[in-house]
């Protein structure tokens, strides 16, 4: 305990001296985080992005973050505090910061804002997110190949479109390999509760699932799957440490390149409000190395990844049949359009579960 405190103190000391050295004319860039920077998941990855930014442009910018900012009434104040502290470009990294960010953005037209995973924009407020469903599609292919029981276990956080589209992409891919594949879905109703996520993973395995997929943020499901000798996919970050013989791959949030790009634009005076919804081709996220699978499966996954990047493969390629047996309207030509994916509120055929809130 003492040792760690000392280590921590030294660490903070170093951090302090770095910030003290910063000059006043540096561009100030602020971040608002939902969790603690040590959550090993969502916030951790955003902070890794921030650190990549510091590494790349550390001599021109100064970064500040506020962690553990709840998505309630405090968010607006926290964002405004960053503005008042002189930050000129502010990243708000959770969906729930959408309205507070917009309110503050309207109040301070000379400050630029970047909101993650939302859909409201302003001349000084961009949005950015990643097409994680592409990664989920690849995972679905692998899962169907690797599952012996033909039952996949899926731990959901909340039935929002991002998660629902992930489940659908997984199942569409899995069905293309094995038309009879089943998925069992458990909603944990939390983004982050290692104990509960572990319990959900256990329940899924006990009910016959042999490949565990998660859309919650802790490495607990991976660790349980590893303990039980099953397979699993990581989430947000590299989780292979928690399942060296278990992790097939993981969807890695890699915000660094985007942050660097946007800050460079800000420095150059070319920043403008945009809607960036980056796929695998944009480096907004990446797939962790494909591990614990035969070479042919690995090759299939890599081919699919290449096809998606090349634009030859679209996870939501029509025709798509909904759970009710009716075909889904195809607004994007030969695939669903972005609006349909961003607001996805239906299951595809073959999912036995009922979508909550429907």
């Amino acid at each position: 305990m003492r040792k760690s405190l000392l280590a921590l103190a030294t660490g903070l000391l170093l951090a302090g001296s770095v910030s003290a050295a910063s000059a006043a004319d540096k561009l100030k860039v602020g971040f608002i985080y939902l969790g603690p920077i040590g959550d090993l998941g969502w916030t951790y990855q955003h902070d890794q992005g921030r650190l990549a930014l510091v590494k790349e442009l550390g001599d021109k910018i100064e970064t500040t973050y506020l962690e553990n900012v709840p998505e309630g009434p405090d968010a607006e104040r926290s964002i405004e505090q960053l503005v008042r502290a002189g930050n000129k470009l502010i990243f708000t990294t959770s969906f729930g910061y959408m309205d507070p960010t917009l309110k503050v953005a309207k109040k301070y037209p000379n400050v630029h804002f970047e909101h993650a995973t939302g859909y409201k924009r302003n001349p000084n407020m961009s949005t950015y997110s990643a097409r994680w469903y592409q990664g989920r599609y690849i995972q679905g292919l692998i899962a169907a190949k690797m599952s012996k029981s033909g039952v996949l276990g899926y731990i959901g956080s909340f039935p929002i479109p991002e998660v629902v589209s992930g489940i659908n992409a997984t199942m569409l891919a899995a069905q293309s390999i094995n038309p009879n594949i089943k998925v069992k879905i458990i909603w944990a109703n939390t983004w982050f509760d290692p104990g509960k996520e572990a319990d959900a993973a256990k329940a899924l395995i006990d009910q016959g699932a042999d490949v565990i997929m998660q859309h919650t943020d802790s490495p607990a499901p991976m660790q349980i799957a590893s303990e039980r000798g099953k397979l699993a996919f990581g989430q947000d970050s590299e989780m292979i440490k928690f399942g060296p013989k278990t992790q097939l791959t993981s969807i890695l949030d890699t915000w660094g390149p985007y942050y660097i790009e946007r800050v460079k634009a800000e420095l150059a005076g070319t920043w403008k409000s945009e809607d960036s919804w980056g796929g695998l081709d944009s480096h907004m996220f990446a797939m962790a190395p494909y591990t614990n699978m035969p070479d042919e499966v690995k090759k299939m996954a890599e081919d699919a990844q290449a096809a998606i990047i090349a634009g030859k493969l679209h996870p939501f390629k029509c025709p798509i049949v909904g759970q009710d047996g009716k075909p889904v309207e195809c607004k994007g030509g030969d695939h669903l359009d972005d609006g349909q994916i961003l607001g996805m509120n239906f299951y595809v055929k073959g999912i036995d579960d009922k979508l909550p809130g429907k």
Partner: protein
Amino acid sequence: MQLVLEKRAERSGTIALVSPLIAVGLTIVTMVILFAILGKNPLLALHAYFIAPLTDGYSLQEIAVKATPLVMIAIGLSLCYLANAWNIGAEGQFLIGAVAGSWIAVRTQGTDAGAWVLPAMLVLAAAAGALYALIPAICKVKFGASEILTSLMLVYVADLFLDYLVRGPWRDPHGFNFPTTAEFDPVATVPLLIEGGRLHLGSIIVLLVVAAAAILLGRTIKGFEIRVVGAAPRAARFGGFKADRLIILTFAISGALAGLAGIIEVAGPIGHLQPGISPGYGFTAIIVAFLGRLNPLGILVAGLFLALTFIGGEQAQIAMKIPLDVTKVFQGILLFYVLACDSLILYRFKLVFPNRQVARGAG
């Protein structure tokens, strides 16, 4: 050697005034040590925590905004605690109030409903909060079920109920299925007091509530009854006061205030109903109630002070990169010192040596 408390013949007025200052002094000393260990400049840190937020109008407004729900809830809780009724589920009553009030906002959305909307929301929220608080109160009075437990359990239930509503039936139809209602109409929004700021009508309402509580406790029979039932239950029984009825009453009042605080937060600073509308206000308010010594004016001061540490903590995080955990430790230590020093009002501290001490029976 042993620490012994000796009861003062009467409350010490001087110490009542001085003790918060001693507490702040001790906190400062402790934090200076902690900051030094963490390698932060202690003077700058203390400035960020205590002074900087008080030096500009913006931060002062934010302190008032943050303190508003805390004080509102804590006033209600203090009545409960004075009457020896242990409502620790104000968080749940806060959420249910927010839900009930939002129901009107959601129902009237996009219609030409007039100025009656906001008052109706406030009334319904208070009523719902009171009813929700009555569940533990009635379980206590009728069945003897511990109100501490039932009120706490109902927090989780309220939280999940709200969650269900905003992810299901009340979801904004144009919001890409994200879990939130649409932004409330202007008639369903708590008006702001200062252009460009965040100070809202709720801060005025809370001042009225503080005044009303002061009058209730200081000048009415009911207030006297509440104090007696809490302080001397046996005397109260002889005096013909009905403890059960007071439990129901104080729970209802505190539930109503918590519900009111809930809808004011939602229809004020937030502007729509969503999950996570409360960063634990209902629990923090319990501390505010005790920091304020269960006295309405004391609670007002305590609420503002605690709000100051939140705002200051944020500014320290920005200005000096002090981790949030340090702010939590700082808050915890501060609370301990304030509570410990308050003990001086009622007791004298003495160090005695056990071998000289003769065990004596106490009455």
